C-alpha cells in the first residue's frame, strides 16, 4: 500500500489536512546535514508564525561509524498553531537518510503508532548485499510495526542536480517537508540564503535548486499534505538555544569575565561567548582546570565586577572548595551548572537534574548560597541578569542550574529590549570613610558594603578563615558564630523579597505537581491535558530553590496530594526493599517535605532525555488513583 503513496502520475490538487501540531524528526549519519535541515525547518516554521520547539539529536561520539544505530544525528521539530514549551511526545513524521539511524529511534520508542517514515531508498539496491538486506529487513519490520513507510529515491533525485548528494540531500529533504506542511517555498529560499549567508552565490544557488527539486518532487509524488495554522508574530521574536541565551544573558548583565574549563554540555555557552564577548570588552578565560577557573573568577570578582564561571556536574564538584571561599569571604560570584547525566562522568550529552543538592550543600561547613534554576530558553537569558544582581547585592555566590535539554533546545521568545538597569554599576573606587569596617554586618540582614581594591582607606585582608568585622582572623567562638549567622541571614533577607510563584491551573484541587528547571513546559502541558479532561490538577514551578519563597506551604495545603516531577533519582516504591523509612526521595521533594512537613511524593525519570508531557500525565494519573494516606 505504501507504493500507491508514491505516485507516478502528475498530481491533482491535494486535500490539505489541517492539524493543531506535528512532531517531525530528521535523522542521518553525522555530517549528512540533518541538523542543518532540521534547524532550517524549525526556523521556517517559526517565521511562519508557528509555535516551535526544536531538540537536537546528538550522537555521543565525535565521529560515529556511518549507518550505525548509535550514530543518529539530527533534529526533532515540534511545531504547532499554539506556543510550544517542550519537545512533546512521539514523532508524527520522521525523515531518515538510512535505516540504521532510524532503528535507534524506533527502539527507544520515539515514534507514534502509524508514524510516517520518509526513508532514503538507495540502500535497497546497495552493492553490498549485507547492506541491501539489512535495509530490506528493516523496512519490513517497520511496516510490521505498523508504520507508514515511504521509500524515497533522495540520492537518485539529487544526483540529477549535484555530483555528491551527501552534501545536498538535506536541502532536498527540506523541500519535501515544506511541501508536505504547506510552507511558503519563498521562506525556504530566504532561509537557505541566510544559512549559507557567508558562502558565495553559487553554493546558495545549488542549494536553492535542491530545495525546489525536493518541493516539486513531493508536490508530484506525495498524495498527502498538511497545514498547521499559524499567526504571524506581531513583535520581534528571538530564536536561539538555551546556552546561547545564557551567554547573551552574561553579556547583557554587564559581567566582564567568564572563566571556564571545557565540559559538555556547558561548553557551547562559552564557545558562543568567546566569539562575541570581546566585542563588548569582555573576556573568556579557559583555565587549566575547574578549580583554577573558579579561583580566577573569584579573583576577578573580588577586585572588580562580579564574574561568572560555567561548568557541568564533574566540574561543579571540583569547584566546591572555591565556592566555599567566596561564600566565606563574601565575594560575589555566579556559577552556572548546565547539568548532565550523573553521577561521575555519567552521560555527558544527556539531560538530568541531579545536581540540586550538591549545589546547595556540597561545600563543607555551612556555606549558604543562592540557588536558582532556569526553566526555559528565555529564562536562561534573564536569569543571568538576575543572578549577577543578587550576587553583587548580597555579596554571595549565586548558582544557576540549567541542563542539557535547555542547552540545545531552541524556541522563539520576545526579543529582549536592552535596559541599562541590567548592567553592573561601575566599581566603587571612592574613599572609605574612616572607621568603616570591611565586615560591618547589618545585624538584621547580614548585609555589608564590599570594599574593593583601589578604594583608599579600605585596606584589609580577606580570608577563608573565621574572621571578625575587621576581617582579622578570629579564634574565638563568638566571632565564628557571628560570621555564620550573618552569612546565613543574607538568605533570609533575600527570601523576604521573593514573591510566591503563581499556581498554574486552579488554586486548589486534587493534585499539585511541583517542579523546577527544564521540566516546566512538560509539566504545564500535562496539567493542561488533565484539566481538559476535567481533572482537578495544578502545578507550581520554582525559580528560587535556595532560598525558597514563602507561601508554598499554603498552596500545598489546598491540594489533597502533592508530588514533585524531577529528572533525578528517587527510589521506586515498587522495589521490594523500599519503604517509607528508607526511600530516597528526589531532591526537591526532600526539601519540601523537610520545610513544610507535608507528605510530598515524587515521580522522577532519568532516561537521558527530556521528560515528556505524556509521561507526566500518566505519573499524575497514577497519583490521582492512589487513595490518600491520611
Amino acid at each position, binding site marked *: 500500500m505504501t507504493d500507491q503513496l508514491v505516485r507516478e502520475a502528475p498530481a491533482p490538487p491535494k486535500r490539505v489536512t489541517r492539524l493543531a501540531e506535528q512532531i517531525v524528526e530528521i535523522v542521518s549519519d553525522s555530517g549528512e546535514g540533518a541538523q542543518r535541515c532540521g534547524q532550517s525547518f524549525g526556523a521556517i516554521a*517559526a*517565521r511562519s508564525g508557528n509555535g516551535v520547539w526544536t531538540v537536537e539529536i546528538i550522537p555521543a561520539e565525535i565521529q560515529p561509524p556511518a549507518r550505525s544505530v548509535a550514530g543518529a544525528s539530527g533534529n526533532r521539530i515540534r511545531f504547532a498553531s499554539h506556543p510550544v514549551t517542550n519537545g512533546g511526545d512521539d514523532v508524527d513524521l520522521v525523515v531518515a537518510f538510512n535505516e540504521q539511524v532510524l532503528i535507534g529511534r524506533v527502539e527507544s520508542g520515539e515514534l507514534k503508532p502509524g508514524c510516517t517514515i520518509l526513508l532514503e531508498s538507495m540502500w535497497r539496491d546497495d552493492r553490498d548485499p549485507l547492506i541491501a538486506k539489512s535495509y530490506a529487513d528493516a523496512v519490513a519490520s517497520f511496516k510490521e510495526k505498523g508504520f507508514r513507510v515511504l521509500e524515497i529515491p533522495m540520492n537518485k533525485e539529487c544526483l540529477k542536480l549535484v555530483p555528491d548528494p551527501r552534501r545536498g540531500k538535506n536541502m532536498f529533504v527540506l523541500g519535501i517537508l515544506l511541501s508536505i506542511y504547506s510552507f511558503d517555498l519563498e521562506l525556504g529560499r530566504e532561509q537557505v540564503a541566510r544559512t549559507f549567508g557567508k558562502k558565495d552565490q553559487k553554493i546558495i544557488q545549488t542549494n536553492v535548486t535542491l530545495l525546489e527539486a525536493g518541493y516539486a518532487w513531493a508536490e508530484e509524488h506525495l498524495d498527502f499534505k498538511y497545514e498547521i495554522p499559524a499567526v*504571524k508574530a*506581531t*513583535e*520581534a*521574536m*528571538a*530564536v536561539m538555544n538555551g546556552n*546561547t541565551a545564557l551567554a*547573551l544573558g552574561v*553579556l*547583557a548583565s*554587564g559581567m*566582564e*569575565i567568564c*572563566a571556564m574549563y571545557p565540559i559538555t554540555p556547558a561548553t557551547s555557552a562559552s564557545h558562543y561567548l568567546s566569539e*562575541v564577548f*570581546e*566585542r*563588548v*570588552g569582555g*573576556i573568556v*578565560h579557559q*583555565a*587549566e582546570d575547574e*578549580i*583554577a577557573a573558579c*579561583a580566577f*573568577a*573569584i*579573583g*576577578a*570578582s*573580588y*577586585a*572588580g*565586577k562580579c*564574574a561568572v564561571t560555567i561548568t557541568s556536574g564533574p566540574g561543579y564538584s571540583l569547584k566546591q572548595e*572555591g565556592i566555599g*571561599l567566596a561564600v566565606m569571604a563574601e565575594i560575589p560570584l555566579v556559577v552556572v551548572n548546565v547539568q548532565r547525566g550523573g553521577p561521575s562522568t555519567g552521560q555527558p550529552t544527556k539531560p538530568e537534574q541531579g545536581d540540586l543538592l550538591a549545589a546547595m550543600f556540597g561545600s563543607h561547613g555551612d556555606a549558604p548560597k543562592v540557588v536558582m534554576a532556569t526553566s526555559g530558553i528565555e529564562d536562561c537569558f534573564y536569569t543571568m541578569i538576575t543572578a549577577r544582581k543578587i550576587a553583587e547585592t548580597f555579596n554571595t555566590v549565586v548558582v544557576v542550574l540549567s541542563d542539557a535539554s535547555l542547552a540545545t533546545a531552541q524556541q522563539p521568545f520576545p*526579543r*529582549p529590549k*536592552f535596559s*541599562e538597569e541590567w*548592567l553592573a554599576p*561601575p*566599581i566603587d*573606587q571612592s574613599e572609605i570613610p574612616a572607621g568603616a569596617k570591611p565586615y560591618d554586618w547589618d545585624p538584621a540582614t547580614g548585609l555589608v558594603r564590599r570594599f574593593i*581594591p*583601589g578604594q*583608599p*582607606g*579600605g*585596606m584589609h*585582608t580577606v580570608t*577563608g*578563615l573565621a574572621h571578625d568585622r575587621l576581617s*582579622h*582572623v578570629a579564634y574565638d567562638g563568638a566571632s565564628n558564630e557571628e560570621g555564620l549567622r550573618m552569612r546565613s541571614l543574607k538568605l533570609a533577607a533575600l527570601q523576604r523579597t521573593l514573591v510566591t510563584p503563581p499556581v498554574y491551573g486552579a488554586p486548589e484541587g486534587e493534585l499539585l505537581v511541583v517542579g523546577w528547571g527544564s521540566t516546566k513546559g512538560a509539566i504545564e502541558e500535562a496539567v493542561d491535558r488533565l484539566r481538559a479532561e476535567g481533572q482537578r490538577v495544578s502545578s507550581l514551578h520554582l525559580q528560587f530553590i535556595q532560598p525558597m519563597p514563602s507561601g508554598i506551604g499554603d498552596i500545598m495545603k489546598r491540594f489533597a496530594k502533592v508530588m514533585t516531577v524531577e529528572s533525578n533519582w528517587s527510589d521506586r516504591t515498587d522495589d521490594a526493599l523500599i519503604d517509607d523509612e528508607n526511600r530516597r526521595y528526589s531532591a526537591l521533594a526532600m526539601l519540601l517535605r523537610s520545610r513544610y512537613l507535608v507528605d510530598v511524593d515524587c515521580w522522577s525519570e532519568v532516561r537521558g532525555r527530556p521528560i515528556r508531557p505524556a509521561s507526566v500525565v500518566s505519573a499524575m494519573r497514577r497519583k490521582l488513583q492512589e487513595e490518600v494516606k491520611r
Partner: protein
Amino acid sequence: MTLELTQCLIRTSEEPHDIADYQTGVPRWCVGCGDNAILTAMQRLCRDNDLAPERTLFMSGIGCSSRLPHYMNTYGFHGTHGRALPFAEGVKMSRPDLDVFVSTGDGDCLSIGAAHWIHALRYNMDLTVILHDNRIYGLTKKQASPTSPIGTKSNTTPKGSYLDALNPLTVSLGVSNVSFVAQVVDWIPEVVYQVISAGYKHKGLSFIRVLQRCPEFMPGYFDPWMSDPQKTQLLRHPAFITPSAEISRTYRNQLEHDPRDLDAARRIASIEDPIPVGILYQNDDVPCYEDTRHASEVRTPAQIRRGLEGELDKFTIWPEGDARA
C-alpha cells in the same frame, strides 16, 4: 577594561609613604622564622617604590608563609590552599592597574598547587611571586614537602622521606613563556631585596624562590650554608644585578651569569650546593597574558547595547511589515 578604572590611576595622596604605612598587626611567625625577612623586604619595596597601599595587593594560599598578607597594610587576599596563583590571575585580568604580589609555600605552590604553578608561568601575567621554600610543611606541623631533602624525618615520614627533593627552578625553566626565575636565601636580606625589586620591576611573572629558615621544624638545616659563605654562589651581571661591595666582602664565591642564557640558567638551576643566589633567567620579551587578552574595546553601556543588539539581530524574526523582516 572599564572606563571608570582610570579613576584609580589618579594618585589620591601625594606625600611619600614610609615603612610604617605598610605595616599592620603583629607577625605571628616563630622566632627566627625566615618569613620575617621576606615581610621586611616587601615593606621596604613598597616604601622605596612609594606604592599606594590601596592599589597594592598581597595574595597567598594557606600555610605559615601565606599569613604574610595579614601583616601588610595594603589590600590582602588569603585564599585557599594551593590556589593563590589562579586567584591572582583573576585579579590581574580584571585589574591590571593593581600591583599584585603572591606569597606561596613549597607545599602550597609545588604540591597541591603544582598545576597552577606550571600554568601561571605559561600565562606570564605581571605578578611578583615569592616561593617561601622552607622545605617542609610548617603550618600543619611538620610533614615532608616536595622540596624536603630525601631522608627528612617528619610526622608522615618517621623513617625519613623517600624521594629526592623536587627542584622548582629546573622545572620552571622547562616551561614555555617563563620570563623570570630567581633564587635567594632569607639570611642575606640585601640580596633578597635586590632580587625581589628586580622581579617587581620585571614586566611578567617573576618567580622568586626564597630558601627560608623554619627553626621550628627544620632547625639548623641551613646552618652549613649560613656558616660558610663559600657555599653560596652569587650570580652577577652588569646588565642585571651586581652584589654590593660589602656583600662581596663576605660572599666571595660569585659567578658571572647572563640571565638571558636559558641553557646556562638550566645548568645553574641544577646545582644544589653551593646554592646559586640571584637571577637565573630573565626575558623581557615574553608577552603578558593580560595584555594579549585585553579587550581593545572600551566598555560602556552603549558599547554593550551595540554588541547585544548586533547579536540579537542574528536570531531575530521580525514581525510582518517590519523593514528588517
